[in-house]
């Protein structure tokens, strides 16, 4: 009986909606919820999804593909360069120690040949980027020492998959590829040729990303249709994934590379926020798929083997991580977090095992066994984390506080100020800030301007600043200041409302067109607002006085005094405005306000306020 797509979707979504909140409620994190949901609906419990589980895994693997694209996008090359020593150092140590020990164990006790040992060891050295990143994000520990170390290792592993995939055909030797399943273009070529093709595909992604995709995105963005942009983003990811599949490479890696290529483009934030919901959902689906694909019949047939491999494997990985963490001077509580986070075998192991199997490097039986072990280790991780959180971690006094971790230095400098709107007003601010060494994250939705300014060396991102997801990816959660300088007062106010609601700790400095704008900003609780029509007009009026014969310094002092007076009057009149029943200011009320303002001026007697350097009053005596 063939299940309809609707029924499958129903089962998947219903199980996720049911189990994920339960898991969250029990403090286990969403990953475990998805995995349990997968096990429950899988062929070995209820069998809601059965043989077609494989197909679903294919769709769900796309979540991993998207995740890697977004990781690639988020990799700021400068940031990456700063972290290079940590990434390479931590990663080499972790992978090296794990692979050597696992390979030796396999060679000695499981009677693997040299080449099989190497392939198995490399695959098992991988950890799960999907699980760890999701966990880091959910628990808010990305910025702890343990979290950052984990991210570095994962990044290294993700990058290392490329050379590993390139090396495997060579390890497999010339005799094996002929028997390959041949559903990729590559299977028919000798090992060196395959390696060359892998490198060629990688080079193609780099060149095409820069010279085809970015110009295409520019054209699409000019249509100003948001869904077109989303469609293009999806098309991009799918096209890269397809290309990689055709040449027999991991789609996840291809998209990771594509992400890195596009990380430097102005569309980074836009792409990120467009793909984020797809990524989340598909990643959830991926975890459900992992749960569903656990081969319980194999486990019940070979309980001794499986249940000794999983703990030994995790122990070996844990010890390798412990040594790595010790060398990099992680504190004990952070090191334990680091160990538990990375002790599982990751999704790339599925890819590597499948590839090795396809190369006839690893036989059917062992592929099945290791895939089951991988899935089991993924299930164990959230449980271990829970155990750590409840029982182990509270014993450490060295607990790193996230609050202290966010020192001024720690905050990425160019993310501490967000400048929304880079028109004539905003660009002046941006130039002045840059001249003084403050590099604001700039958001603007005019792609021509974005392009030009990027050529001038500004860091400008293309996008609609009133979108919550865009603000988030621009770092609104950690930024110190938001400058609302958008040309349209309405959009500007919309932005301020969104920011006040979702990022109450982000300080807002706002551009106001005129005093009525300013009144509304006062009502919204904005304290720092700057009227376009105040400072320029007063400066002009000062020059008028000068041309009428007043000394420049006196005219300037009068002007500054007037600005101060006018700002005080604005506060006062804003309260008066509240006494009026209707908040909508019509023309009649505007005139009423103007009248009040002018009569206020008369009372203020602006010219008699100070007597500095004035000897007239002394002479009168």
């Amino acid at each position, binding site marked *: 009986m063939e299940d309809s797509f609707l029924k499958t979707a129903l089962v998947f979504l219903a199980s996720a909606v049911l189990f994920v909140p339960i898991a969250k409620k029990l403090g286990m994190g969403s990953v475990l919820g998805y995995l349990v949901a997968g096990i429950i609906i899988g062929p070995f419990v209820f069998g809601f999804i059965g043989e077609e589980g494989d197909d679903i895994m294919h769709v769900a693997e796309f979540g991993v593909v998207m995740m890697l694209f977004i990781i690639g996008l988020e990799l700021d090359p400068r940031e990456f360069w700063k972290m290079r020593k940590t990434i390479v150092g931590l990663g080499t140590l972790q992978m090296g120690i794990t692979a050597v020990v696992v390979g030796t164990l396999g060679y000695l006790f499981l009677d693997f040949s040299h080449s099989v040992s190497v392939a198995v060891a490399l695959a098992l050295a991988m950890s799960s980027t999907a699980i760890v990143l999701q966990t880091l994000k959910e628990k808010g520990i990305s910025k702890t020492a343990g979290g950052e170390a984990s991210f570095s290792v994962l990044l290294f592993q993700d990058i290392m998959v490329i050379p590993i995939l390139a090396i495997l055909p060579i390890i497999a030797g010339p005799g094996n590829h002929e028997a390959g399943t041949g559903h990729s273009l590559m299977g028919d070529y000798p090992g060196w040729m395959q390696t060359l093709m892998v490198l060629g595909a990688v080079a193609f992604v780099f060149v095409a990303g820069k010279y085809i995709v970015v110009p295409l995105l520019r054209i699409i963005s000019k249509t100003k249709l948001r869904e077109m942009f989303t469609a293009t983003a999806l098309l991009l990811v799918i096209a890269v994934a397809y290309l990689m599949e055709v040449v027999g490479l991991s789609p996840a890696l291809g998209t990771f590379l594509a992400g890195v290529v596009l990380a430097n483009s102005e569309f980074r934030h836009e792409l990120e926020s467009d793909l984020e919901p797809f990524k989340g959902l598909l990643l959830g689906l991926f975890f459900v798929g992992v749960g569903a694909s656990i081969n319980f019949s194999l486990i019940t047939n070979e309980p001794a083997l499986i249940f000794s491999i999983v703990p030994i494997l995790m122990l070996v990985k844990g010890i390798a991580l412990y040594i790595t963490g010790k060398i990099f001077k992680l504190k004990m509580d952070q090191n334990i977090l680091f160990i538990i986070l990375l002790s599982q075998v990751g999704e790339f192991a599925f890819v590597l095992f499948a590839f090795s199997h396809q190369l006839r490097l690893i036989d059917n039986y062992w592929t099945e066994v290791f895939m089951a072990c991988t899935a089991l280790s993924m299930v164990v991780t959230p449980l271990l984390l829970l155990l750590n959180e409840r029982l182990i971690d509270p014993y450490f006094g060295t607990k790193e506080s996230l609050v202290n971790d966010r020192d001024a230095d720690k905050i990425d400098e160019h993310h501490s100020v967000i400048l929304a709107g880079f028109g004539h007003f905003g660009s002046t601010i941006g130039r002045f800030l840059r001249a003084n060494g403050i590099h604001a994250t700039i958001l603007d939705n005019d792609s021509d301007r974005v392009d030009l300014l990027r050529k001038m060396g500004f860091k400008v991102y293309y996008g609609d600043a009133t979108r919550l997801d865009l603000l988030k990816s621009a770092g609104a959660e950690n930024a110190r200041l938001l400058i609302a300088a958008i040309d349209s007062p309405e959009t500007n106010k919309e932005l301020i409302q969104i920011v006040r609601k979702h990022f109450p700790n982000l300080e807002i400095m706002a551009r106001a067109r005129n005093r009525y704008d300013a009144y509304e900003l006062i009502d919204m609780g904005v304290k720092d607002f700057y009227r376009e029509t105040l400072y320029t007009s007063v400066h002009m009026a000062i020059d008028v006085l000068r041309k009428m014969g007043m000394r420049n310094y006196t005219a300037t002092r009068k002007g500054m*005094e007037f600005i*101060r007076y006018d700002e005080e009057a604005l506060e006062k009149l804003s309260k008066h405005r509240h006494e009026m029943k209707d908040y909508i200011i019509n023309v009649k009320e505007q005139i009423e306000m103007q009248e009040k303002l002018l009569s206020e001026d008369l009372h203020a007697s602006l010219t008699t*306020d*100070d*007597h*500095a*350097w004035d000897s007239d*009053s*002394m002479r009168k*005596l």
Partner: protein
Amino acid sequence: MNKVLILFAHPLFEKSRIHQALVKAIPNSPNITFRDLYELYPDFNVNIKAEKKMLLEHDIIIWQHPVYWYSVPPLLKQWIDMVLEFGWAYGPGGDALSGKKIFNVISAGGQQAVYSPGGRNRFTIRQFLAPLEQTATLCKMHYLAPFVVHGTHLLTKEQIVEYTSRYRELLIKLVENPVPVESLSEAAYMNDYVDLTK
């Protein structure tokens, strides 16, 4: 109980070791008000009304600043020019500040020996401060001896600690005790008014 107002003027506070330490040492007390003039008036547009109100609310006024070219930084001079108005601070009916105590807390690059008739600067610190002393006197205030930090370029950490704890003790003592106007007017420096050994 005296209320102390510190009027602080430093155009490059962020680079001054000694003034950062001194300002940090100011006790957190409801009886002490600290006003950073360069922070308040970067455009030199001193708010006369607000400054007058501040003066009226305090008994002891301190001008804290570095000595530049044997004088006060320009904003402090601007403050004096604008706030101490005729008919309010001095002249007929100008009694607003009458009876208040005022003195300088200053830092100078040269050592004390340099500020003497035989030294390179030929005059003593108190002689250089004469215009301020006379300004205070014209406003019917009691001008007291200055608290002076000498040789600011060569201060060791220990010396800075010594000066700052002295300053802190001085402020506490001024708040809590009646001021011996006579002896403090005549002293060369205010520095020894507190005895740190006690």
